[in-house]
């Protein structure tokens, strides 16, 4: 009987090790990414954020519409010209796929403002985007990928943001949405001699 017990111990150790090895502890839920090929090369993907439903945070010095209720922006003069918003990020078919932050810092005049986006998609990686200080005449603002992680690591590209007012009469319709058009271009691999 002692031998059976000892065999059981070995089996128990092996079963526990096998179970831990075979079963992934973390499995991030993935949604299909809806990309399209653009004429001059690369792929385009459209993200959007429904306002106000997807807004997680809206903070800045002296803001009257802070989100969430109870948010206290630090009373430090050094942060007086900085504001940041945090959102849930949706794909083209309105599924939530990640979280995003948009930070605006006014340094001197408006033309030298820093406007940066961080798009974090847990199953895919993160994109860090630097936007132009000034929007174009049509209201769109352009930006460039600065860097990315995992799936976005080997990508360069551009992003355009625009605000679209919702025209639907639906009671549950959002006020509008922020649209982000991302155009990805893979970095060329160095030629091998």
């Amino acid at each position, binding site marked *: 009987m002692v031998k059976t017990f000892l*065999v059981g111990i070995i089996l128990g150790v092996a079963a526990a090790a096998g179970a831990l090895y075979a079963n992934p502890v973390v499995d991030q*839920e993935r949604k299909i990414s809806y990309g399209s090929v653009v004429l001059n090369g690369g792929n385009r993907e459209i993200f959007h954020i429904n306002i106000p439903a997807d807004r997680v945070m809206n903070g800045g010095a002296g803001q009257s519409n802070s989100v969430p209720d109870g948010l206290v922006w630090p009373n430090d003069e050094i*942060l007086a010209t900085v504001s940041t918003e945090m959102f849930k990020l949706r794909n083209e078919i309105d599924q939530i796929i990640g979280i995003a932050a948009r930070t605006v810092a006014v340094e001197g005049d408006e033309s030298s403002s820093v406007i940066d986006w961080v798009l974090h998609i*847990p199953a895919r990686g993160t994109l*860090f985007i630097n936007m132009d200080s000034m929007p174009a005449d049509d209201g769109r603002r352009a930006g460039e990928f600065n860097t990315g*992680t995992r799936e976005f690591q080997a990508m360069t590209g551009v992003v355009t943001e625009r605000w679209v007012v919702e025209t639907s009469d639906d009671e549950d319709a959002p006020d509008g949405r922020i649209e982000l058009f991302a155009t990805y271009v893979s970095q060329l691999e160095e030629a091998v001699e």
Partner: protein
Amino acid sequence: MKYLIALFLGIVTGAVIFAAVLVYNPFIGKSGLSPLEVSDSRTMSLSYSAVASESIVYTNDGESTMDPYPEAVEQLWEDTIRQSSAMATVMRDGRNQTVGLGIKFSSLSEQTRLLSGKALVDSVWYVYLPGRGAFFLEQTENYWDYLRSVVLPAYRSSANTWKGSWLGNVTAGPGALGTAKVTGSSGEFEGLDMLAVESIAVKAWRVEGGPVAAEGRLLIELPDVVDAAAAEASQKLD
């Protein structure tokens, strides 16, 4: 029948022995000395409170140990983001002065391998320091030592609380020496590639709510060009 009972008890004992060896194995998951601690280069230290209620905003799926803050904040309950957290916090310098804003997004990593002491989290920081510029930090963090030294003892305690002093580097990559990758985007950091390490110092942790007294720190290695820019800025101020 008695052989079956003996076999069953043996299997249970084996599984328990395996778990104990895994948790208490001193050779895995130990966070070592950061290469930046012994670097000759100038470094910049930014600290932040690792307690949710001391941040500007902290949110997660609402069911994890750390409670979202403020209470009314939208929770990340959707399938695609429920294993993630988001935080906005004040960054302080070595003299405890506010120097900027930090935003951290973290997600449990699919590379997690408990068998080899890897409880991994993929995280990114966006840090904006007014007057200096902004940078983006990407890293893989390993919380195995933290779980083993702080969280597990708290669960074992009859008061569901851990008190003590734990300090460890959580950054485990992507750099070969276990460093984070930092990319500057504006101001004096524009165009720079740097290295960093994040560490956490915990003094109290409780099962309901997570860290009670804890501070995080980003240690960033600055290239010489930043030293020159800082000296120039200092001369102008003089």
